[in-house]
Structure formats: C-alpha cells, structure tokens
C-alpha cells in the first residue's frame, strides 16, 4: 500500500463523512446503492462512516460522471482507457468516465470479455484515494491501478486494510484478522514477479 505525498488524510475529528452525487447525473437508487456498498467496505475496517446527503456542494465527497474534458485538467478518454480518478483528502472529488459501459450487478460469469466495467469495483478503488491511499503493487489489492474489463474485485485485501488502518485506525467492531500479524510482502530486487 502507499499514500499520497505528505500522507494527507481526513482530520482525526472528522470520522463522519458525507457524500453526494452530481444532481445533473440523475442517478437511480440502484446506482446509488452500488456506491453505498462500496463505502461500506471501507467503513467496516475503519472508524469512518459515510452518509449520503442531497447537498452536493456541501458534501465532503462529491461523486460525478463526466465525459471527456470536464475542467480538472484530466479529461476522460472514451470507452476503457482511464475509468475514473479521485483526489486526495480533503478535496473529496470523485469523477467517473460517463462513456464507460458500467455494469451494476457485477456478474461476469458465463460472459466473454468485453468492454464493460464493474461499477462497484471502480468505486471501492476510488474511495481508497478519497481517503488517502495511493496505488499498490499488490495485484490482489483494491488499490492496484488496473482492472480488466469484465472483472469484479470488491473485497479489500490485507494490503488495503493495513494501509487504511495505518491512516485511521481500526473499526472497533472489525473482527477480521489483525493485519499487523501478517508479514508484509518482501520484494526481491530482481524485478522478477
């Protein structure tokens, strides 16, 4: 796991974060529910909670779907390529490429690889950025930068949990294995996998 330079995080007193969706996107409750599940994965392992609010500009975390150039200097590029991006704390901006074919149910079994992206997988990854995590070289980690189309990856890996708990501590109710007891992967120097 890694952090942004200077390790930005939400201040210690700000454990109740609000999120909102760009009103112009007019997202359905089903789509909003995908994000709620994604937030839940991070709140399970940290003291942070996430609550939806209707006040987009008053929210800590602001989620929007955009196509092409959307004014932040990081234009989206159409189908596949870059899927989404999110800013480090306390910016709270979370942008997704509106040109992707976003799949809601995440069931890619019995289907050939195609240009479809699991929304929840991308949401869980980008929320990691919103909270202060950078990219990880651990392939199983949510914070690994790439995802194949037609793939679902929504479970936090030990690497993700160790990273986020280093920033915020653990949820008192979290009953997972203590990540500090699991040795971190030791990289060799050969460049070999």
């Amino acid at each position: 796991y890694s952090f942004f330079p200077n390790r930005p995080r939400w201040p210690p007193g700000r454990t109740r974060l609000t999120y909102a969706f760009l009103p112009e996107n007019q997202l359905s409750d089903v789509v909003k529910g995908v994000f709620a599940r994604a937030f839940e994965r991070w709140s399970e392992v940290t003291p942070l909670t996430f609550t939806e609010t209707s006040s987009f500009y008053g929210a800590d975390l602001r989620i929007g779907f955009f196509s092409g150039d959307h004014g932040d200097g990081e234009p989206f590029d159409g189908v596949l390529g870059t899927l989404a991006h999110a800013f480090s704390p306390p910016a709270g901006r979370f942008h997704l490429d509106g040109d992707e074919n976003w799949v809601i149910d995440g069931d890619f079994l019995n289907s050939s690889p195609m240009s479809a992206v699991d929304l929840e997988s991308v949401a869980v990854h980008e929320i990691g950025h919103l909270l202060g995590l950078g990219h990880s070289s651990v392939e199983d980690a949510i914070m690994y930068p790439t995802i194949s189309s037609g793939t679902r990856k929504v479970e936090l890996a030990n690497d993700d949990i160790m990273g986020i708990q280093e920033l915020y501590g653990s949820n008192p109710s979290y009953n997972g294995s203590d990540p500090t007891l699991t040795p971190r992967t030791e990289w060799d120097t050969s460049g070999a996998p």
Partner: protein
Amino acid sequence: HFFPNITSIPASLIPNTTIWDAFNALDGCRKGVKADGLAKLKKYFQLFGYLNNSYDNFSDDFDDYLEKAIRTYQLNFNLYATGELDAPTLKHIVLPRCGNPDVVNGTSTMRSGKPSNRYSANSTIHTVAH
C-alpha cells in the same frame, strides 16, 4: 451508460478497439529504435507520472527516458524489469485503469519506490534475489 448486467449491453456500444490497443504494435521496441506510436506511448507514461511534466521530446524515438519509464513501470507491476516493450508489459499497458498517477513528482510510492528497489529501477545491471 448503466446496465443492470452484462447481457443487457447492446452490441452497438461495444467498440472493436480501444484507445490503447494500438500500443500492441510496439512489441519488441527497445532503446535506440524509432517506431510509429512511441510518441503516443510517451504521453501515456507522462500521464501516469513515469515521465515528468517537463519532458517534451514527444518524437517516435525510443530514448533513455522512455527506457527508464518502462523499467519503473515494470517494477511497479511486478514484471521483469527489462526496459523493453515486451509482450507481458504491453499486455498490461493496454488494460483499463485508474486515472490517478502511479508516480507523483518523480517519486513512485508503488514497488519501484521501495528502498530495496531504487537501485534496480535505475540500473541496467541485472540483480538476483538471494
């Protein structure tokens, strides 16, 4: 475009190629060669931080900077750090991904930035784990 499941996506919305597929034609490229498409690949590496923002030689020449960028990328993604555009590397480059950079202000927080890998990220000497 939201779809309840994968079978509900109309064929008309599924492109035959995507933005980075053209990079597959660069298989085998290494330092010193010139090949159509390397300029675009350099922009890809700059987008994700592997070439710094001041880099502006967007020609189709495979230069030292591109080699170093590829080597860093390969370390970050657990590939053999050859500095060449081999098939496994290209297979990875064309995958859809997060738009956030892997390298910020010249510093990678991924694998290549770990202390034990700083040497091999910048060297052509092949080292082997003990």
